[in-house]
């Protein structure tokens, strides 16, 4: 492809260091992320795709079947075999929440003793392992680390399924708020550290709050928490600074958000909501990818009696079911087309809307990703 013929999506992605694929669950974010990354590699860039939970066969195809948070290079010969032009390179990895969190602690702990104390703390283990929100946070954290240290031209991030579409955007801030500020100070009350009930050291007025919470949560739980926060104290500055910079990167011109959706009415409604929230936060939507759009076969399927009379007798019994099936399909395809047109209208001229047809087969290899790209980039 020559630079002069760059497609709208190519133009968008050309100089973005970070591409974040977002959208509601089940729309194909992971596949689209991998396809965008493959495109970048085909244009000579050094690209990393960081995915959350790829289909096993796709992961195999990219050579990241083994778990772990290490980046693995997709063998160049696989790219060549799939028809990707040489010159670029593709890395892929799966996000490992626990491991990323541990690494963060290791990085910011002031000394080995505090590091070990945190890693061994039961509360931390629950926090880093199975608690909602930490996956979103770690996705952002990993993104930042890779951007700083990976040396990639472009990082494509597949976002975790969130309950609310934008949870991951504020995940860093929420986590650092939790690990910092009033809550921690509160849990670091001298009375708790001394193991005594009550709240002598707390300003008047919060005393009732303190007592009630102590009663509710149990003092020994609060003491556990308090120990956790104490161990974390030396890390706060590092965490807070990181959270601030992550938000900065997400809001900057080097990041493009690609919203992935299906043409179903309720998913599109979610996508609209997402678009609005993104704008509210001063982040700009780069493009929309509508995945699994039903093909329009270009005919209405209605046949006249004269048409039918010409069908050879041997084939005639097949015609009614074939026509019925085509008609039903076309009705759906027209619905998709109508909603797509309305979406383009709402998105405005600056936001490209690319579509991927609903393939009747799974996409599970690099060739499949290339097939997707043939539609995305045109």
């Amino acid at each position, binding site marked *: 492809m020559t630079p002069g013929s760059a497609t709208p999506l190519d133009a968008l992605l050309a100089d973005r260091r970070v591409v974040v694929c977002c959208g509601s669950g089940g729309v194909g974010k992971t596949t689209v992320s991998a396809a965008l990354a493959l495109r970048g590699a085909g244009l000579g860039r050094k690209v990393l795709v960081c995915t959350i939970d790829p289909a096993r066969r796709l992961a195999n195809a990219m050579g990241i079947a083994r778990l772990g948070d290490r980046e693995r290079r997709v063998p160049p010969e696989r790219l060549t075999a799939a028809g990707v032009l040489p010159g670029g390179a593709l890395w892929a990895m799966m996000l490992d929440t626990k491991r990323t969190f541990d690494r963060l602690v290791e990085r910011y702990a002031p000394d080995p003793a505090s590091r070990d104390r945190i890693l061994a703390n039961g509360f931390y283990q629950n926090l880093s392992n199975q*608690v909602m929100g930490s996956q979103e946070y770690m996705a952002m954290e990993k993104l930042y680390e890779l951007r700083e240290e990976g040396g990639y031209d472009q990082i494509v991030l597949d976002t975790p399924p969130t309950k609310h579409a934008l949870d991951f955007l504020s995940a860093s801030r929420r986590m650092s708020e939790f690990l910092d500020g009033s809550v921690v100070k509160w849990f670091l009350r001298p009375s708790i550290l001394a193991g005594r009930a009550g709240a002598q050291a707390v300003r008047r007025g919060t005393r009732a709050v303190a007592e009630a919470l102590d009663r*509710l949560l149990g003092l020994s739980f609060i003491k556990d928490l308090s120990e956790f926060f104490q161990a974390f104290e030396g890390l706060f500055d590092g965490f807070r600074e990181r959270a601030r910079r992550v938000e900065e990167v997400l809001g900057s011109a080097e990041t493009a958000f690609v919203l992935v959706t299906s043409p179903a009415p309720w998913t599109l409604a979610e996508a609209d909501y997402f678009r609005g929230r993104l704008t509210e936060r001063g982040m700009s939507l780069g493009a929309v990818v509508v995945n699994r759009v039903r093909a329009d076969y270009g005919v209405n399927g209605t046949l006249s009696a004269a048409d039918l009379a010409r069908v050879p007798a041997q084939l005639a019994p097949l015609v009614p079911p074939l026509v019925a099936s085509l008609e039903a399909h076309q009705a759906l395809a027209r619905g998709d087309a109508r909603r797509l047109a309305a979406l383009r209208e709402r998105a405005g001229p600056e936001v490209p809307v690319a579509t991927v047809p609903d393939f009747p087969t799974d996409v599970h290899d690099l060739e499949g990703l290339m097939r997707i790209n043939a539609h995305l980039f045109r």
Partner: protein
Amino acid sequence: MDLLGHRLLFVTGKGGVGKSTVAAALALAAARRGLRTLLVEMDTRSMLAEVFGTGAVGAVPVELRAGVEAVDLEPDHVAEDFLRTHLRFERVWRPILESRVWHTFYEAAPGLKELLCLGKVYRLEEEVRRYSRVRRWDLLVVDAPATGHAMGLLNVSRVASRILVGPLRRFAQRITDLVTDPERTAACIVTLAEEMPVNETLELHGRLTGKLGLKVACVILNALVRPALEGEARDRFETLRQGDVLRRGLEGALGGGPATALLDCTEAQLAREALQARYARRLRRRLRVPSVEVPWLAVPEWDLRAVEEVSHLLERGLGRVR
């Protein structure tokens, strides 16, 4: 399997498989059976109000239709409700609710929102009618979050009873008792017959029934495409497809455009059916749980009639499972 005979159903599955619709459809089916049913949304931007044409669904149960009410467990209300219940006196809970410490703690403390939400479900299950000991609802259908978040939600009381002490620990223990009681509580996993949803269903089933000790009553195979060609027509199609007899015949009679459209559309649909059949088989082979089939419903708009139709299809599907 008597799915609607439970007291509490958690409807979960991968994102985008139709959980909310299935949950609403289950509630309608339960109401047709004469069960007073509560549909519980978990802070979703719910389409219920729009579909049922009711006022906004919030913390207070709204009647969707005779026999079916709905609530949406919005975190701030759940917190207030929790503090109010456990601390009783407004002069005690009000300052907590309004304090910054509580606010930040509640926003960020891992699992706390989930714990209080599940706690609210527990309390709704226990709710009795005024002036009586009779339960207010016969069945609660919870439109639970997608896989990972559902695990977080359903696991939270277990974790809490391990790390908490005091009144909250006892509360968490009682929640766990309810959630893991196979007489009262069951989960249904909704899935599509596609690669990722099926894989996720297998994994989710393992984790729910394993570590969490929940009963998974059934898997609901949603939106199954209906065969384009059946029986004799299918055989004829297969035969005539050989050697391009069909294509040439149709092209000759109808012209290239319509012939190609008819054939391509059918071929694509047959390929989809084959794929769907493969994943449905894989699911059945790997799981010892009844699977309930709900056919794909082609509707232009997702309205009340569509949800009702799904509800009848679901009921028929349930009837076919022993």
